[in-house]
């Protein structure tokens, strides 16, 4: 399942002079499967790397500045005072600690929303991969087709519907729409098709196991990397959810972090409001940290999951 066979661990046996398999690239003669390292390529890729990281560096540097030095110092380097911990403390305590509440809300939405979305996507992808049922083609076409419709077409009708059901201004208004992840469905479909041999399922059925038992005991363990991948991607999507919560939520105590930061930024634009750009920047830094940490720690899984199954040679 994991792409654990990098292309360079062994010199192909087809070489006329039989050699021992060599592990280190630099010792092997240069070939397609064990190329020499290229500085040029590294530099070019380095440019893309800088492009990706400079804004994040900017964010970090400016989170260490006080509001007045934000305005007067060079954007990409530190100012005289290092106010990072000060800023963090103020961010967490401003307005009776509402940032913490927003953080908790976001975690709630992510756990229930992403968790639920992954669950639905796993079930659905499994069905699409391993079963033939009436309407199967229609299912995926409909899902992709519906995703093509702009969110604005859905916003007001969904709002009206949800308020009839009494769901607006509650966490459910945010969680329920985030339960649908078409990309997750697709990913699970492909992954399940690859990772679960039909013979295994047949064997289980022959043994008299029900479909649901088979699913939980046989298929689910095989799907693990794919599940983690979908979970991570739906986590990012729910963590960063902005548009629909904007319409559904009116009570700031239910805001996710994205809405909260936006509200703080907008505060500067009101008569009598207090400009807190420094807190917006520090808050932004704190908002992206958990996701980055999650990605760093779970690297192994989502890479293999994205590889969508092992290749049978």
């Amino acid at each position, binding site marked *: 399942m994991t*792409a654990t066979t990098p*292309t360079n661990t062994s010199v192909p046996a*087809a070489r006329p002079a039989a050699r021992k398999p060599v592990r280190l690239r630099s010792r092997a003669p240069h070939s*397609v*499967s064990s*190329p020499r*390292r*290229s500085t040029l*390529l590294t530099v*070019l*890729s380095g440019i*893309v790397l800088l492009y*990706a990281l400079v*804004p*994040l560096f*900017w964010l970090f540097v400016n989170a260490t500045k006080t509001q007045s030095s934000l*305005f007067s110092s*060079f*954007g*990409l380097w530190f100012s005289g005072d290092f106010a990072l911990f000060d800023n963090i403390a103020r961010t967490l305590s401003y307005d009776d600690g509402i940032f913490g509440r927003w953080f908790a809300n976001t975690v709630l939405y992510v756990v229930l929303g992403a968790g639920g979305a992954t669950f*639905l996507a796993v079930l*659905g992808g499994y069905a699409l991969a391993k079963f*033939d*049922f*009436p*309407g199967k*083609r*229609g*299912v*995926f*076409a409909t899902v992709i087709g519906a995703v093509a*419709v*702009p*969110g*604005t*077409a*859905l*916003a*007001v*009708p969904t709002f009206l*519907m949800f308020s009839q059901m009494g769901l607006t201004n509650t966490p459910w208004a945010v969680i329920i729409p985030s339960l*649908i992840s078409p*990309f997750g469905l697709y990913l699970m479909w*492909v992954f399940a*098709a*690859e990772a679960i041999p039909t013979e295994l399922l047949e064997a289980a059925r022959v043994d008299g196991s029900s*479909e649901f038992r088979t699913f939980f005991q046989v298929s689910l363990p095989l799907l693990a990397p794919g599940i983690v991948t979908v979970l991570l991607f739906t986590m*990012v999507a729910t963590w*960063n959810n*902005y*548009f629909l919560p904007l319409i559904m939520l009116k009570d700031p105590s239910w805001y996710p972090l*994205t809405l909260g930061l936006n509200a703080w930024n907008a505060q500067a634009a009101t008569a009598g409001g207090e400009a807190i750009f420094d807190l*917006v*920047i520090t808050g*932004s830094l704190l908002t992206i940290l958990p996701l*980055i940490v999650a990605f760093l720690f779970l690297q192994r899984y989502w890479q293999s999951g*994205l*590889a*969508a199954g092992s*290749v049978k040679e």
Partner: protein
Amino acid sequence: MTTTSPPVAVPPPVDALSSRPVRRRRRSWIGWGFVGPFMAVFALVFLAPIAYSIYLSLFRTQMVGGTQFVGFDNYARAFGDPQFWSGVSRVGLFLLVQVPIMLGIALLVALAIDSGRLYGKNFFRISIFLPYAVPAVVATLMWGFMYGTRFGLVGNINDALGTSIPNPLSPDWVLLAIGNIVTWEFVGYNMLIFYSALRVIPTSLYEAAELDGASQWQVVRAIKIPAIRGSLVIATIFSIIGSFQLFNEPSILQSLAPNAITTYFTPNLYAYSLSFSGQQYNYSATVAIIMGVLTMIVAYVVQLRGMRKEA
């Protein structure tokens, strides 16, 4: 699956209305037990609102005069609406420029990392992917601060180096500025999709190519790119859909550049303004439906072309 077809397979082109029931073994309803929960929530969250939108688009509500059925009047109006079409052409332009650039960079980086010729490829992989973890709101706020020509980074650079970088938030440059933000956000994500697809190409193919004396570049052209065709197509489709639905970034930048980003800058922004500033829910629904259909058509065409080349 075989060794030649892409592991990340694109499902065959489907058209729900023309699928013929195929007599196969094990064709039963049990599949619905699994896909049912997904479809149930889907119906509530997507199908119902879309149906309601379509319903809304056939009416007209006035502040003075109430609601009346107007049939396809709204659609006729949309087709003749210069603001709507300027928005459509803008996202069309955006799509034609930004998507190839972003996917191109993503592909090149994925190939570079996969080629094994980089120093520290793990670091590259994770770092270039990081921007994806940043919410659009935060990314736009950040870039918005940096784009400031008086006190932002652009201003700083101009002062320090004596250059005169034009104001990214002026009408001439704002689309490019937004394109930059979107590229920054998603290049890592697409890169990773391509990279993962590259990783599962069987090494036997490379061995065979080496036997034939192929160069790195030939390997890329003949083996790697064709092998990830499926991911390329899917990434393109999702990027196209994303481009047509462009909303978050222009909406957040609008307060910084109110004259450059009009209320009809993108079709989605137009639909939003119609609904929430103008109370014109019916016309807004019409605009959104038309955009949805347009997007579906383009995405379908891309998929067809992408898959046909495989033969």
